[in-house]
């Protein structure tokens, strides 16, 4: 007698009055949740459904609905359904719980507790349709003093920098965690928009080298695919010290996911497990980090800005201060709500800090130490809309990284099943039949649309505040007021309460 501890999380509801029996749902579901019986009847295997909405979206007559299975345990605020079922899972398998994307847990979202100013009466607002609004942003070291030569001209020291048409970049997502078509869409959109995308730690696919001007290449602990052509290809190099979704741990790409193309791009043999160690084993101190920063500067003749990416963790402001002093041109801080292709559940949900608090404390600390201009700050970790971008810049960021938002633009429905490798939208998979579903041209257009729309919204909000450039908004905490925050939270964020 089989005793089944698990019930399906979702129910696939088919309206048989509408259903025309085309069978598209069967071919489109890589999880095998839709089946046809021997007698030819359509039926569903609900336990295999991950709620990705692929079948719902492609059904020509809209006959399918996915419902949450409302089976429930007895009401218990101490022990929620997922607490109980996760223990069932571990008792059965002895395994580490694995999950994807950002944490869905109910932690406070500080973006939603801050309000933006608008100009009235004493300070006119600016109409972005009539007057120029500058969203161009430059990332890199800035001079803190002006020096003149003997002719009275300003001495210009050429420091490497990144120019962005809008303060938004596409965050690092490796080729291996997402498909080549997704990378093609991101690279193309970055070029169209005049911004950059980050190719992640899996190396850069040969077919994307020509997007080099709009590419940030990443050097992570595994140093996969890192060679001279790779270092020359991008316009900036990012050293990945940590990632918001899984701070402190390394990565493990199983041999089964390493096909011919991934093997070639990462320069590792096919079918072997790719283990990224947790720390860079040649970086054991801040001095070692400075050494790696300068290895990369020397290797690229000081022509490319070096970014250091860290996860937001305790004492992040001290860490960022140290990194600013070791030669990095840009520091990227990744908040704990950031996404990931796969991470242990407990680390994704419990480790790290919210980016809003991390950003505010780092910006304040760098300004107090007089070194804010020696480095640019880029933040990420679930930036969901243009208002989040405006608030991030007002708190002190120079630009933001978007990852989850970009994937959603490409069709991701946040079903959080990336670690299964069967993404029905062709994004988080390497299966050729699924990757085909993501049309890079169409994806490129959708990303262009998203970032252009956000840029216009940013201009409108800035104009509303009476500000006409990102520079004037950056670190302008007076443009924010807190709502529903404690005194301490207001203090860390460095903003006043609404009404004050």
């Amino acid at each position, binding site marked *: 007698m089989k005793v089944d501890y698990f019930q399906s999380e979702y129910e696939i509801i088919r309206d048989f009055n509408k259903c025309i029996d085309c069978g598209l749902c069967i071919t489109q579901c890589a999880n095998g949740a839709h089946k046809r019986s021997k007698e030819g009847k359509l039926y569903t295997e609900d336990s295999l459904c991950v709620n990705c909405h692929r079948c719902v979206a492609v059904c020509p007559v809209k006959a399918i609905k996915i419902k949450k299975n409302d089976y429930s345990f007895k009401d218990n605020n101490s022990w929620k359904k997922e607490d109980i079922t996760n223990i069932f*899972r571990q008792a059965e*398998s002895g395994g580490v*719980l*694995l999950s994807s994307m950002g944490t869905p847990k109910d932690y406070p979202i500080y973006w939603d507790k801050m309000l933006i100013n608008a100009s009235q009466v004493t300070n006119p607002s600016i109409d972005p349709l009539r007057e120029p609004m500058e969203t161009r942003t430059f990332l890199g070291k800035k001079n803190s003093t002006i020096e003149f030569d003997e002719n009275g001209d300003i001495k210009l020291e050429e420091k490497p920098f990144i120019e962005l048409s809008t303060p938004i970049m596409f965050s690092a997502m490796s080729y291996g965690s997402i498909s080549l078509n997704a990378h093609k869409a991101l690279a193309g959109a970055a070029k169209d928009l005049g911004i950059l995308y980050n190719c992640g730690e899996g190396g850069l696919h040969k077919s994307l080298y020509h997007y080099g001007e709009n590419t940030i290449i990443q050097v992570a602990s595994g140093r996969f695919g890192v060679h001279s052509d790779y270092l020359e290809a991008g316009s900036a190099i990012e050293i990945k010290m940590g990632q918001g979704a899984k701070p402190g741990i390394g990565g493990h790409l199983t041999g089964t996911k390493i096909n011919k193309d991934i093997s070639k791009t990462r320069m590792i*043999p096919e079918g072997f497990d790719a283990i990224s160690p947790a720390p860079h084993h040649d970086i054991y101190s801040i001095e070692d980090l400075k050494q*790696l920063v300068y*290895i990369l500067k020397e290797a690229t003749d000081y022509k490319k800005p070096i970014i250091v990416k860290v996860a937001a963790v305790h004492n992040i402001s001290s860490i960022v201060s140290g990194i600013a002093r070791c030669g990095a041109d840009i520091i990227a801080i990744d908040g704990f709500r950031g996404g990931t292709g796969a991470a242990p559940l407990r680390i994704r949900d419990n480790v790290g800090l919210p980016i809003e608090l991390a950003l505010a404390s780092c910006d304040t600390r760098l300004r107090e130490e007089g070194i804010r201009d020696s480095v640019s700050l880029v933040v990420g970790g679930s930036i969901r809309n243009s208002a989040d971008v405006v608030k991030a810049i007002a708190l002190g960021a120079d630009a933001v990284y978007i990852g989850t938002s970009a994937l959603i633009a490409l069709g991701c429905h946040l079903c959080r099943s990336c670690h299964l490798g069967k993404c029905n939208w062709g994004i988080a998979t390497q299966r050729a039949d699924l990757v085909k579903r993501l049309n890079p041209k169409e994806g490129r257009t959708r990303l262009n649309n998203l970032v252009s729309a956000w840029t216009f919204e940013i201009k409108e909000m800035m104009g509303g505040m009476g500000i006409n450039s990102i520079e004037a908004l950056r670190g302008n905490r007076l443009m924010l007021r807190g709502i529903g925050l404690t005194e301490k939270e207001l203090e860390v964020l460095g903003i006043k309460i609404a009404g004050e």
Partner: protein
Amino acid sequence: MKSINAENLSYKELNSIIRQSNDSKFCLTGVMGQRFIGCALKNKEVEISGIPGNALGACLNGGSTIIVNNNCQDATGDTMNEGTIIVHGNCGDTAGYSMRGGKIFIKESAGYRMGLHMKAYNERQPLMIIGDRAGSFLGEYLAGGTIIVLGLRQEGNCPVGNFCGTGMYGGRIFLRSNSLPKDISPHIEATVANEEELNSIKAYIQEFSSIFGFESEEILKDNFYVLTASKSTSYKKKYIAV
């Protein structure tokens, strides 16, 4: 051949001279700890008298050779792609981190964390040979390539420290020794090297010997162990999808 006296030059000035110059051969004297010498060098040869600083030959590229007539320090050949580094002396820690091609030959002993995460692909097969002893953590996370430790002054004692090859999942480590380290992980298969395996490294040992004036036949007569990633025990953690 361009001669450079590095005595009063900062590393930035010294490396810039080498980079901008059209010469392809350089002879450096008076080197006193300048870092990043030969970083990302391409198709050039540098001979160094004095003690180079950290990160010598980091990101080294094809057609390049770096020869050090003394000892070298930490992070030598870090993330190097191709080329050859020859050290007529001792080496510091963490040489050849993430090496993915080329050769590092060290006449005497080396420090901790040598050859970490070396990787190989097709014709890119990195090689590291250490003449005497190597410290702990040799070849951790090895993904490909060959590391050989000869223990030339160890009189048959084990020439490596603790945690040798921890986390390796590819590549080979050869130890010229009569005994294995006591703490070899169960994920590593350690066997006495057979004739075929010894033949596969014969040419490497001959090259090493001719550079430093050793007798390769004498070296190859002794017992060698070879360490490889065990195929039966894997590192696969059990994961259960949520």
